[in-house]
């Protein structure tokens, strides 16, 4: 199939999978924000979320497939692009390209490392900081787990750094997926550029607010 091998086709697949991941980021943020309602908020949410295991696993496999496609094409397209540009200018001055646009592969791979760590920590409970237990209503105590782990400044700072990488990735990724889908014209090009940065910054700050609030002692056990 042409879409799987052509230059534009693979970019469209990158764009669509990127959009799916952005939707996930939004849903995940809404879910995370239940922590502000205390143990009853996030513990009830988590229990509700996991009450249908087949659905949970179908969703996980779907997200895994989206990430796999996004990474596979991200890496191959980047390698092709590096090969197409010998990069031998003694002096090269960029007029428009940004740190974010030039480092998509690195911010993307760092976010991937974070996802691995994040799953190991809060899904598999494989890191030493994780406290697993049940709350008074006999639900998995997600609130205690998150507040305990984020109480460690190093863990919170690593999380914040990962969100900074996510911000950089999305600040180019959002306007870029709109352009690749062709949903763009002369007027929207600068607007989407600014809008992409603003939305990415809001997402970053919203995610960071959780460890920040815990570190500041505003959310405690």
């Amino acid at each position: 199939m042409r879409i799987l091998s052509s230059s534009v086709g693979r970019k469209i697949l990158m764009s669509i999978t990127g959009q799916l991941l952005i939707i996930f980021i939004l849903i995940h943020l809404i879910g995370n924000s239940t922590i502000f309602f205390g143990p009853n908020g996030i513990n009830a949410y988590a229990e509700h979320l996991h009450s249908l295991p087949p659905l949970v696993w179908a969703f996980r496999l779907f997200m895994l497939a989206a990430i796999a496609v996004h990474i596979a094409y991200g890496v191959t397209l980047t390698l092709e692009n590096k090969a197409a540009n010998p990069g031998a200018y003694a002096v090269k001055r960029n007029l428009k390209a940004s740190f974010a646009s030039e480092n998509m592969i690195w911010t993307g791979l760092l976010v991937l490392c974070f996802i691995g760590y994040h799953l190991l920590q809060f899904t598999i409970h494989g890191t030493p900081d994780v406290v697993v237990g049940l709350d008074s209503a006999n639900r998995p105590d997600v609130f205690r787990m998150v507040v305990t782990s984020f109480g460690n400044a190093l863990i919170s700072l690593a999380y914040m750094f990962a969100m900074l990488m996510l911000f950089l990735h999305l600040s180019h990724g959002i306007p870029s997926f709109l352009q690749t889908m062709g949903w763009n014209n002369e007027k929207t090009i600068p607007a989407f550029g600014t809008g992409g940065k603003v939305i990415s910054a809001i997402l970053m700050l919203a995610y960071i607010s959780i460890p920040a609030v815990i570190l500041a002692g505003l959310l405690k056990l």
Partner: protein
Amino acid sequence: MNLTLHVWRQSGPKAPGKLEQYEAKNVSPDQSFLEMLDEVNEHLIKEGKDPIAFDHDCREGICGMCSQVINGVPHGGQERTTVCQLHMRRFNDGDTIYIEPWRALAFPIQKDLIVDRNALEKIMQAGGYTSCHTGGVADGNAILVPKQDADYAMDAAECIGCGACVAACPNGSAMLYTSAKVAQLAALPQGQAEAAERVCAMTEAMQEAGFGNCSNHYECMAACPKGINVKFIAKLNREYQKALFK
């Protein structure tokens, strides 16, 4: 004014190249950049040295032949200006100027500042045309084109095919060049019949010629001496999606 030039010198396609330093003395601010190089070359010839080889033709900013990366920007960074229309008044006495050829895998260096841009022609040959029966000249108004469509097509047709977009692109991609032709012909009734085949053939030819993939840095638009907008790349992407369902 007096300038120090660092110019890429390479005797042939396979020869190793390097930057060499030259002094340009008593340069007039009214000279064009190419006239300044002409004078440097005259001195080199008088000294019995090989003059700096560079592409040029119309020297009016419309042919797309001149192709030099000046201080890291294709065509020197003056908005909507080709090298031949860049004037020395843009520089200051004592400036150091780096002059390099277009650099991309698809543009092999032939000599000094001259690169082979046949790869762009390969893209054009793949679909940058409309097929028609030859014969008597058709009536110019036989097919009416709305003014907006004609203007849009003309904006895209402004591309002079110099390749600055490729030279500026961190990915060595020719998407702006390719999209300008795809968008121009897709906007006109004459181009509709072959629109789907065209976008596929031209983007495939781009890939085969060794150009990279667009990752929306928009560096091309900033360097383009004709101000070709990346909205045409969005148009190409739309045309490609339409072609998928044909």
